[in-house]
C-alpha cells in the first residue's frame, strides 16, 4: 500500500443539449427578461481600442449540415494582448462572448476587437488568436479550438507548429472576406475537420 493522493477527479461532462440557451442565453430561448443582465452579450464596449472585426461562420457536422442549435463562447485579450484584469488592459474589452448559431440558417457572427499576441509561460510568442468553445446536443464534452487570422504572421506560433499535417493548419485560420470581415467555420467531422484542442 502507498499513501493516498489528495486529488479529485474532474466531474464528467454531459452534453449541453438542445435547450442550453434557456440557462445561458435566455433571450435566445424566447425568455427575455429572465435575467436583468445576460452575460457575454459582447466582448467589447464602445471605445475599445484596436480594429473592430466580424467573424462569420457555421458549425458543420459530419454530413456537411450546419447545426442550428450550437452555442459558442469566445475568450481573448485586447488589441495589445492583455487579458481583462491584467495591468494596462483595455477597460472596454471584457474578452468574453457567448453566441449561438441562427436557428433557421445556422450562421454565427462574432463582433469583437482583433486580439494582440500573447506569450506562453516560457516566453514563446503566440500569434494573435481567439479561444473558442463549442457545445451542442450530441457534443458530449465541449470542444476547444482557436481562431487565428490569415493576415497575421502565424509562422512561429507554438500551437500551429505542433500540427503534423500541415494541410490541416487552415482549419484554425480565419480567411479575410472583406475589410474587417473574416470567415471561419467549425467543422466537427469529415475531410475538413477542425483541429480541436486538448489544452
Amino acid at each position, binding site marked *: 500500500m502507498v499513501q493516498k493522493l489528495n486529488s479529485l477527479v474532474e466531474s464528467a461532462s454531459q452534453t449541453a443539449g438542445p435547450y442550453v440557451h434557456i440557462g445561458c442565453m435566455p433571450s435566445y430561448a424566447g425568455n427575455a427578461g429572465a435575467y436583468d443582465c445576460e452575460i457575454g452579450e459582447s466582448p467589447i464596449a464602445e471605445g475599445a481600442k484596436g480594429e473592430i472585426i466580424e467573424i462569420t461562420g457555421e458549425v458543420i457536422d459530419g454530413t456537411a449540415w450546419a447545426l442550428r442549435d450550437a452555442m459558442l463562447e469566445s475568450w481573448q485579450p485586447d488589441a495589445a494582448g492583455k487579458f481583462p484584469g491584467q495591468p494596462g488592459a483595455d477597460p472596454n474589452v471584457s474578452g468574453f462572448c457567448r453566441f449561438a448559431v441562427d436557428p433557421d440558417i445556422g450562421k454565427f457572427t462574432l463582433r469583437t476587437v482583433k486580439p494582440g499576441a500573447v506569450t506562453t509561460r516560457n516566453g514563446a510568442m503566440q500569434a494573435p488568436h481567439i479561444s473558442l468553445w463549442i457545445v451542442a446536443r450530441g457534443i*458530449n464534452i465541449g470542444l476547444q479550438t482557436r481562431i487565428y487570422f490569415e493576415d497575421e504572421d502565424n509562422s512561429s506560433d507554438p500551437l500551429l507548429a505542433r500540427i503534423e499535417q500541415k494541410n490541416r493548419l487552415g482549419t484554425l485560420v480565419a480567411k479575410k472576406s472583406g475589410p474587417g470581415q473574416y470567415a471561419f467555420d467549425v467543422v466537427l467531422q469529415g475531410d475538413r475537420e477542425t483541429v480541436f484542442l486538448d489544452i
Partner: protein
Amino acid sequence: MPDTTPDTNTDAGPLIPRNRAAHPQVHDVEYKTSVPRSPRWPLLSMESTPSEETGPRFGHDILGEYDNNLILNWTKGAAPAIGERIRVHGRVLDENARPVPHALVEVWQANAGGRYRHVKDGYFAPLDPNFGGCGRTLTDSEGYYEFLTIRPGAYPWPNRGNDWRPMHIHFSLFGHSFGQRLITQMYFEGDPLIDQCPIAATVKDRAQLDNLVAPLDLGQSRPLDYLAYKFDIVLRGRRQTMFENKLEGM
C-alpha cells in the same frame, strides 16, 4: 460594462491535463446525435497558455434578487412554480481538492411535467406559467452554492424507439480559467431511468456517472417546506509548484 472582474490568479501553474477517460465517450452510437457531431481525429494536446489559464470573472453585480430561486424567479416573486420543492446545494472544488470561490454556476431544467420553456420544445406536457427554468448563483469564498427549485420531470426524446431522460438539472460552470469550462448534468438518487439513458451512459466509468447523481440530503432539507439534494462538482485544477518558470542558468 465589462461583465468581468479582475483575474487575480494569473501566476499559478499550468492546468492539469484533462483525463479524457473520466469523461463521456464522444462518439456513442446509442446517442445518435453524437455520431455526426463528434470529431474523428485526435485532439491536439499542449501545455496550457494564458489563453486557457485566464478567463472571464463575474461578480454579484450581474445577479438579480431571485436568480438563485427558480421557484420564484420567473414571476419575480409573485407566485411559486408547480412541483416538488427542492433545495440543491453543494460545493465546487478543483482537482487539488481546493474550493473554487466566486465561480459562476448556471442551471436550467424542465418543469415538473418535463417541459422546457424554449421556443424549440414542443412536448405536449404544459408549460407552467410560474416557471421559467433557469437560475444562476456564485459560489461563496469556500466554494459553496445553493439554489431553490422544483424537481424536474422526466420526459421522452427522439433517439431510439422509446428513450426517456431521467430527471436532471443542467449545470454550466466557470472556474477562474477558460480551460476549466464545464457543462454537466445532475441526476437524482433512486431514479430508475438513469440506467436506461443513453446520454448518461456516454460516461463509461461507473464511478464518474455515480458522481453525477445527487443524494437525498434530509439533514439539509427544511421540515414542511423542501427536500434537499447535495451535488458537488470538481473542476480542473492547476499544477501547484514553485518550479514553473525556467530560471536563469538552469
